[in-house]
């Protein structure tokens, strides 16, 4: 895509807005439609666009495989860890009411952390799936042996 100057510039311009929209959907999940899952997909789509326009090598530099792997695992751990924290603070597993001085705030913090975990894992999973399918062409011969 190196000769499509318009596409390259527009893609670069759009990136921050896509990410911002993803973060909006993530944060707004408590009050309206949205939440971690949708936000994760939108977040990953910014990097999918980047990979489509600038190529896989450039995209991998931005999001290395190692970072994606950590993101995948960390999201689940944040979700589960929030549950365990509730357990350690004297509630049941995934009981957010005990996370703060009163149940209303506790529920708020709890769902916020959980949704963040979901968003992180979904974004990493989406990017990983795309990178694996897109990256397959280059070493297809290698895989066929």
């Amino acid at each position, binding site marked *: 895509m190196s000769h499509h100057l318009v596409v390259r510039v527009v893609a670069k311009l759009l990136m921050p807005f896509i990410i911002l929209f993803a973060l909006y959907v993530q944060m707004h999940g408590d009050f309206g439609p949205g939440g971690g899952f949708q936000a994760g997909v939108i977040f990953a789509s910014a990097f999918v666009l980047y990979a489509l326009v600038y190529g896989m090598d450039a995209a991998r530099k931005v999001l290395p495989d190692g970072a994606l*792997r*950590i993101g*995948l*695992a*960390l999201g*689940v*751990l944040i979700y*589960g*860890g929030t*549950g*365990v924290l*509730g*357990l350690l603070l004297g*509630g*049941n*597993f*995934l*009981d*957010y*009411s005990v996370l703060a001085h009163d149940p209303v705030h506790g529920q708020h913090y709890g769902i916020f952390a959980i949704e963040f975990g979901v968003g992180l894992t979904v974004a990493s999973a989406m990017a990983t799936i795309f990178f694996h399918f897109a990256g397959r062409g280059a070493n297809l011969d290698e895989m066929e042996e």
Partner: protein
Amino acid sequence: MISTHLPALQIILPLLAAPLCVILRNGTLTYWFAVVVAWLAFAVSALLLQEVNAIGVIAYKLGGWAPPWGIEYRIDLLNAYVLLIVSAIGALTVSYAKPSVDQEIGGDRGYLFYTAFLLCLAGLLGVTITGDAFNIFVFLEISSLSSYALIAMGRDRRALIASYRYLVFGTIGATFFLIGVGLLYQMTGTLNIADLGERVAAVGPNRTITVAFGFMAVGLAVKAALFPVHAWLPNAYAYAPSVATIFLAATATKVSIYVLIRTYFTIFHHDFSFGVMALGDIFMVFAVLAMLAGSAIAIFQTDIKRMLAYSSVAQIGYMVLGVSMATVLGLTGGMLHLFNHALIKGALFMAMGCVFYRTGSVSIESMRGLAARMPWTMAAFVAGGMSLIGVPLTVGFVSKWYLLLAAMEQNLWWILVFLIIASLMAIIYVWRVVEAAYFMPSSAGAPTDIQEAPMAMLVPMWVMVLANFYFGIDTKLSVGVATRAAKFLLGDAS
């Protein structure tokens, strides 16, 4: 404080250990981590069974939300018993895994195997422990997705096709179950199993309930690999890595049988399931067909893992047969076989894992003369085979005995005949392997430097084999719990 949270810990331990394995990323480190976690999960399930024995049903409110609105973990004798089986097999299998996984999957990808293994364990335990019908579906998908990954890690490229096929079948099965749950929700407005049990009875047998009943029966039959819909099972077990086969063969279909029992005894009352809907008659026919067809096809297999897989199809027939009688004795027999078959197939597939580790093949030709080179492994296979056939003093005998008693109690003499025919066929297919290993010389081109499998594999395998004999002699735990669970399900207080 810990004791009140045991039901949650049962799931959290393996579920959160799985992503930690991804972060640790070192083959040896993740192995030891997985071993510790699996044994801890086993300890938790043993404590849970003890507690259920002492005080009765345990309920745990997830997130502090009261049922039927929140998700509830509800443990009675039936699922405490299944939890113990699954976690015990999980712990023994992962202890056995290291040499086999290093060889078949490779040290650098080993951590992915343990991750998928722990997720699968968490999924299967979750299906068993939860008291929420939709939650069953979620955990069913966790365990299924991770088992597709486990199977696809097989060395043979056919593992990919086997895994894909299981994916298609498994998804159909789980979706049918979910459609059933959805229809029940539409009629009753609840997903809690205990609550469903009361409300389905109150609504009465209308069309929606009947359709839900049918969808769930088909879906669960696919997941449990009951005879006409068993096609995904043989290749999945044959081409999966040895360790994955051991674990899945000993647990995955058992958990589906558990869900079947839970659905038709707790959600739909057994009077409705087996009286009005005559589910027992349908399942009994398929169970007998499974016993005969599975055993017959097993006789003609040259790949021993595939042979054992077809034998599993037959053994699932035994379990469903017991359940389909819907009497205390029959249900006891079915649940006993669930426990016993896990031990039998665990031991047999572990022996095959050892053979594959040393010879790189599990075909009947590669077994020739192997008993001289791998005496302990082949002895374990013989012991497991005897248990599969149902020789007295082994677990296989105990469960078949209960099934026979149950059939006789109902005057189902024809079942008796088929049970004996299927056992005779088991003698044939087990004997083929024994004959090759003990009475045939090694084939001309066979490598001569084959040694006994390493200690790390032999010890867990022999623990499993000895359990086959221990529970064949001291049946207090297996028969005792199964009988009381059966009485509990049938509402027989005596």
